[in-house]
């Protein structure tokens, strides 16, 4: 209800703007008293929800055009937020909020750039606290375009990094635009600006506030930008290929009969966004793959041409009165859509080990915790005999509750070098396995050299050219690795594996009897 009120206010506010711009200018500041998230971040405040991420992956929800953060709470106990909260191992952080700028294009500083800052802040907080240093994003409609901007330095300036994203879920994001957007006026025009298809779509969206905004005069910057083949869309970079994406699209079929004879059917997408556009950033050609990725075409149902507003004098039928299970503006509250979102988040989480009760430790801290001795300033040399306390840290994940790690009880001398003051490493107790990868964990490899289990992981600052930390059984050492900036396991696994293997062999030959 509150959400409905808020949505109504958006429309009414715009009506006021159209009616009298001068007064709207006077009134709008009253509606924009809440400081933007970007402002809070710029002021040095931590990003909302940046605590408690040691064993939970942050999930950030990004609303769409003419919408607000409240949309994710629609339905209360049956809201999308509630559905995601029920997934173990995640934390739904406060929704990304650009309500006051929700008809501006994603390049607006309150949208794409602010989202980039949020992602960076949350990913960093996750890494600091021992989490995977990644964020899961669920974006509806234009929210997905905001994510594209946030990851594009040309759009966001200080963009977030692909490595900071675990999974992006898009709900009918108009990646290549919408036939409705920016084509005012369309409604009522048979073969109007957008053709018959857009006429049908316009007819379904009479009761949808988002649709009304598309036809509003003047057309807003975002509506203009989301027109098919717009320059704004062309200028927006696609999501980096290394980012796993689960793209969702709704499908409404409009069927037509003449004296009972079926003569035609039209696929009008979810009424606002056509499937091709919604799935354009889905997994394809090896890009956007990974745990939780995929694409889904969800049937919203079928309606008859005769049910559309086009053939009703009055009253205009509300789309919600038609026998559809989903529509562009109701996807977030659809149980089927919620289930799919939760399922794919769950799939991602299940494949991602969570370092439970395992804060990142500096090399010195780790050495001390292990009972050894540390001397000197970085680079620190540690020489001693120690064994890592059995429960210092567990490599744990939903698929592997309790760890189940292979424990080594023997100890040897190792050389522990920490060439990066402040660099952080974590102790991992590894499963002894010969796999060269832990499935679905893009920044962690397990290898088996000379029958000895080794685990390695890349520090959260990997992309900036940091160290690779290697855990030899239950000992840790750092080895110098200067990976090329921006290269991740998902992008060049052979190269990284070679580097890792070479480094591991060197380490083993140096420290094993």
């Amino acid at each position, binding site marked *: 209800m509150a959400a409905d009120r808020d949505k109504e206010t958006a429309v009414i*506010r715009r009506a006021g703007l159209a009616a009298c711009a001068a007064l709207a200018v006077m009134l709008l500041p009253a509606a924009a008293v809440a400081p933007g998230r970007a402002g809070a971040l710029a002021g040095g405040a931590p990003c909302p929800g940046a605590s408690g991420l040691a064993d939970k992956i942050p999930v950030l929800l990004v609303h769409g055009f003419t919408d607000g953060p409240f949309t994710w709470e629609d339905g209360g106990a049956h809201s999308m937020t509630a559905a995601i909260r029920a997934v173990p191992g995640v934390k739904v952080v406060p929704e990304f*909020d650009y309500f006051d700028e929700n008809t501006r294009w994603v390049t607006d500083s309150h949208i794409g750039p602010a989202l980039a800052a949020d992602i960076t802040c949350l990913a960093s907080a996750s890494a600091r606290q021992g989490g995977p240093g990644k964020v899961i994003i669920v974006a509806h409609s234009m929210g997905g375009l905001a994510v594209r901007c946030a990851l594009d330095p040309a759009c966001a300036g200080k963009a977030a990094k692909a490595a900071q994203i675990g999974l992006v879920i898009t709900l009918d994001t108009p990646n290549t635009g919408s036939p409705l957007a920016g084509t005012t006026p369309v409604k*009522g025009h048979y073969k109007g600006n957008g053709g018959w298809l857009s006429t049908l779509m316009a007819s379904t969206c009479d009761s949808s506030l988002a649709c009304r905004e598309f036809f509003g005069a003047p057309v807003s910057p975002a509506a203009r930008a989301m027109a098919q083949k717009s320059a704004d869309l062309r200028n927006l970079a696609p999501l980096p290929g290394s980012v796993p994406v689960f793209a969702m699209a709704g499908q409404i079929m409009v069927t037509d009969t003449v004296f009972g004879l079926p003569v035609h059917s039209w696929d009008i997408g979810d009424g606002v966004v056509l499937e091709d556009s919604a799935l354009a950033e889905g997994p394809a050609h090896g890009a956007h793959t990974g745990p939780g990725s995929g694409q889904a075409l969800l049937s919203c149902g079928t309606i008859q*041409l005769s049910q559309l507003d086009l053939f009703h004098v009055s009253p205009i039928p509300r789309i919600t009165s038609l026998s559809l299970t989903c529509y562009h503006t109701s996807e977030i509250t659809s149980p089927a859509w919620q289930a799919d979102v939760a399922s794919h988040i769950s799939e991602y989480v299940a494949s991602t080990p969570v370092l439970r009760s395992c804060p990142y430790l500096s090399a010195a801290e780790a050495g001390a915790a292990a009972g050894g001795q540390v001397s000197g300033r970085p680079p620190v040399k540690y020489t001693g005999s120690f064994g890592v306390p059995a429960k210092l840290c567990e490599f744990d994940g939903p698929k592997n509750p309790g760890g189940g790690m292979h424990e080594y009880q023997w100890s040897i001398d190792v050389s522990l070098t920490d060439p990066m003051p402040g660099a952080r490493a974590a102790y991992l107790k590894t499963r002894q396995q010969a796999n060269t990868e832990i499935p679905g964990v893009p920044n962690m490899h397990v290898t088996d050299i000379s029958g000895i289990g080794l685990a390695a992981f890349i520090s959260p600052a990997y992309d900036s050219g940091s160290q690779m930390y290697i855990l030899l059984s239950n000992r840790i050492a750092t080895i110098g690795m200067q990976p090329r900036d921006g290269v991740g396991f998902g992008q060049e696994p052979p190269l990284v594996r070679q580097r890792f293997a070479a480094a591991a062999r060197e380490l083993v030959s140096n420290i094993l009897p």
Partner: protein
Amino acid sequence: MAGRRRVSVMAAIVAIAVFAAACGGGSKSGPGPVMTAVPGRLTAGQVQALEKGVTAPGVSVEAAIVAAEVRPGFLRAGRSLLPAGSALRIDAASFRQTNAGTAAVTATVTGPGGGRWLLLLVREDGRWLLIGTRRPP
């Protein structure tokens, strides 16, 4: 934050609504500018064309009164609009323009395919063509 914003927004809305009323502009948030209305009636000639076209001999001839958007589908189906021996009588007085380019009119079919129908029409090149039908409520 959201609650405070909602209160503020509501305040702004109330003010806007009051002003809108005062301006006389109203707060109508319809989908766009009002379209230029096409005169809402079906001429006798158009009625006759539809009535004859529906029962014309041959699918390809019938297709002439079917809207271009669905004509290919109709031709592919390869079936006449009404069973042989049927006749269509349009109640021109019931013609209602529903949008700038769409309209509906009731009709009665006699013969094998008998019954009342609502004909859904679209305007193409100055003519009203059949795009669909449904049973009247």
